[in-house]
């Protein structure tokens, strides 16, 4: 059973109206359990829309989305995935531990079980000492780690992430990437990861899905030929640069209206 199975998916916004947008056309994609897949492409290519269709936060115009072998909506009702956004989206009026417990509260877990799980998750993201803190007392990177802990609190098999590190500085960002990979390795979670950064996509992923806009579709899927175990040395390897080049060339094909694609060394972003 695949983690995610998208077949012949189409999404049209404002169908039949003057401002009709073909957000996604004929998308098919299968993600295996434990696999890390990034969606990359210029603004308006529909990568966030695809993520929200997988999350069943949007409904497809046509086509099928299956998550963990169920229709996407059922998977959402069963909380078969966790989600993290560019904004950590923590609740200011809840402590760090209470933020992590939120999805468990909604599942109806009792207090003792919730507390135990929150502590386990805090240990996983190495924030054990901050359980009683409020979100605004933490740095941006720490907030994002809490958001990841919250997304994984119910031990979902799938993690959906929409540019989760987009608001972080470069150093925190690289640190968070390594952290995310070790968490996923420890939990066996599959990940669909939306990003604007080529080095980020390559460093994290088994496969990079390159998308193009107007209408949104998949132009190429790049297999990243690197050992699964990634570390600081990974960023120095020739295969890393080779994969970056392949993704950049695939993106160049999508070049519409002067979109700037980032350079090799800095993960320069196009927004």
């Amino acid at each position, binding site marked *: 059973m695949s983690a995610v199975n998208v077949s012949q998916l189409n999404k049209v916004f404002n169908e039949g109206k003057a401002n009709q947008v073909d957000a996604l056309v004929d998308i098919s994609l299968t993600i295996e359990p434990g696999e890390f897949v990034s969606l990359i492409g210029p603004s308006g290519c529909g990568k966030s829309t695809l993520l929200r269709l997988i*999350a069943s*936060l949007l409904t497809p115009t046509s086509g099928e989305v299956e998550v963990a072998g169920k229709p996407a909506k059922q998977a*959402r*009702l*069963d*909380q078969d*995935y*966790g*989600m993290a*956004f560019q*904004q*950590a*989206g*923590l*609740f*200011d*009026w*809840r402590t760090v531990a209470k933020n992590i417990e*939120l*999805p468990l*509260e*909604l599942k109806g877990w009792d207090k003792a079980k919730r507390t135990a799980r929150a502590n386990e998750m805090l240990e996983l993201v190495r924030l054990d000492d901050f359980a009683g803190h*409020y*979100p*605004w007392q933490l740095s941006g990177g720490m*907030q994002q780690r809490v958001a990841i802990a919250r997304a994984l609190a119910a031990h979902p098999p799938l993690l*959906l992430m929409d540019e989760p590190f987009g608001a972080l500085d470069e150093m925190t960002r690289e640190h968070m990437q390594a952290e995310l990979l070790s968490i996923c390795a420890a939990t066996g979670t599959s990940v669909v990861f939306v990003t604007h950064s080529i080095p980020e996509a390559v460093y994290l992923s088994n496969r990079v899905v390159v998308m193009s806009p107007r209408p949104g579709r998949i132009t190429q899927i790049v297999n990243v030929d690197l050992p699964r175990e990634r570390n600081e040395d990974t960023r120095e390897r020739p295969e890393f640069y080779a994969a970056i080049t392949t993704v950049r060339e695939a993106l160049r094909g999508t070049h519409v209206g002067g979109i700037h694609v980032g350079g090799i060394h800095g993960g320069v972003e196009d927004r």
Partner: protein
Amino acid sequence: MFRRPRARYVLPPLVFGIAFIAWWEAAVYIFNLKPYFLAPPSKIWGQFTENFGLIWDASKVSGTNAFIGLLAGTIFGIAMSFVLSRYRTLGELVTPLAIALNAVPIFVLVAVLNNMYSITSEIPRRIMVSLVVYFIVLVNVAKGLTQVSPTHVELMRSYAASESAILRKVRIPNAVPYLFTALKISAPAAVITAFVSEYFGGSQNGLGSRITSNIANSKNAAAWAYVLGACLLGLMFYLFSIIAENAATPNGAQKDSGRSS
């Protein structure tokens, strides 16, 4: 917000206040201002201590009106904001009207209300206060209930949370700081409305009516003494709203507004 050096914050306004009163006192003598023009602070204070019992009684009348109106207005305002945030079209219909009414000095309505009740009734004044408070609370709390972070709503939907769970876990906590903002505005407004309501007839028992009657009798310093009482009452209401806010917000969690991180 932690361990502020007290003297640095308290001393300058205190010194300024004392200097201002001293200057006022001196100006009355230096420029030989007539008592009907401006009474010196020493005389006002004398009147204040001399008439303290009367001022206290009048404060109780105005304060009770303000308090009951504040309470009723807050309860109805909160209730209505829930209705408006639940039925958005109704909200879109009513909110602009509420904001527009808020800008009008509607306390003049008290003259109309006075005609509806017996001449000695305090009810028109209390209704007036609650109307003023009601709109302030309604507009602010409705904003807190509806203007939640889109990320929070998406997150809750990803948890398959019901509309009532979103209300309990996102909208209501988000609206709490807005409620206290509304209270900080409406507590002094309630006191002001209670005074002004007394200018439109009815029993001559509150601070507002005592100020006018003393001025009518050329008892300028006594009028000022009642003004001082009115200031203290307004300050007390404001202080209570701040104490309530501190009591209701978790340990040091007071942020400016219901913004997300």
